């Protein structure tokens, strides 16, 4: 049941377009105490149906640039294959620390843009 609820929460966030994957990874790794690589594997698999559905919608709306895809996908796949094998070689502690740093940066970035938004709104009000 808890797992289902965690899925709902991260689904909610990815539906809104903000880091649903990060949230799923955090819950599984930090609160369900699963192995870090298990959490990452879940994260990857979880994203396939989500990306498939929204990807089809984007293609249908003609928002996808196929020329960039031609360059990006083969090289990206080569990189991800190398990276996935590296994930099992690099000590888990280092991956966790790097993840921690990424999460902190994401948090700081979002907070900065929150206050920027507030400021801009205030400026707008005084201008009017």
């Amino acid at each position, binding site marked *: 049941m808890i*797992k289902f609820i*965690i899925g709902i929460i991260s689904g909610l966030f990815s539906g*809104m377009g903000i880091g649903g994957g990060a949230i799923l990874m955090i819950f599984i790794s930090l609160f369900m105490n699963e192995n870090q*690589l298990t959490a990452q594997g879940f994260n990857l698999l979880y994203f396939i149906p989500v990306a498939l559905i929204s990807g089809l919608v984007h293609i249908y709306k003609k928002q996808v640039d196929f020329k960039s895809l031609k360059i990006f996908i083969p090289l990206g796949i080569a990189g991800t294959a190398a990276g996935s094998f590296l994930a099992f070689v690099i000590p888990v502690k280092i*991956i966790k620390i790097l993840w921690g740093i990424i999460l902190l940066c994401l948090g700081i970035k979002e907070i900065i843009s929150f206050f920027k938004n507030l400021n801009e709104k205030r400026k707008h009000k005084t201008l009017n």
Partner: protein
Amino acid sequence: MKKILSSNKFNKIKLSSGAFLTGIISGIFGGGGGLLAVPLLKKYGGKNNNGLEVKKSHATSVIIILFLCIISSIIYLYKGSFNITDVIPYAAGGIFGGITGAFLLVKIPDKYIRLMFSLFMLYAGFKMILGVFK
């Protein structure tokens, strides 16, 4: 020199090397490819590698992430980091939440959700790092 650096050919090289890097990061961390792919497409994507609009960059990155996720989940599965059956409860919730989220998107001011999200990220980031040194 500057002209050479900003030429289309050079932008294509930047996009290609960026694509490889995006793949590596996504493979090591099990996600996060979008964080790199979107800004790369914005700058170097498109017809003449002069950059794509924001909306198209996001849409295109989704397709890229789909491919990267498929490849790396196969490798993660092969390496035995998890079983498919373990994911089912999360995925079921995820699909339900994703649909609800898309509908709610219109109704809730996302400003405060984003603030909550960022505070949660900070908390999780600290917890993640401190957990290593326990």
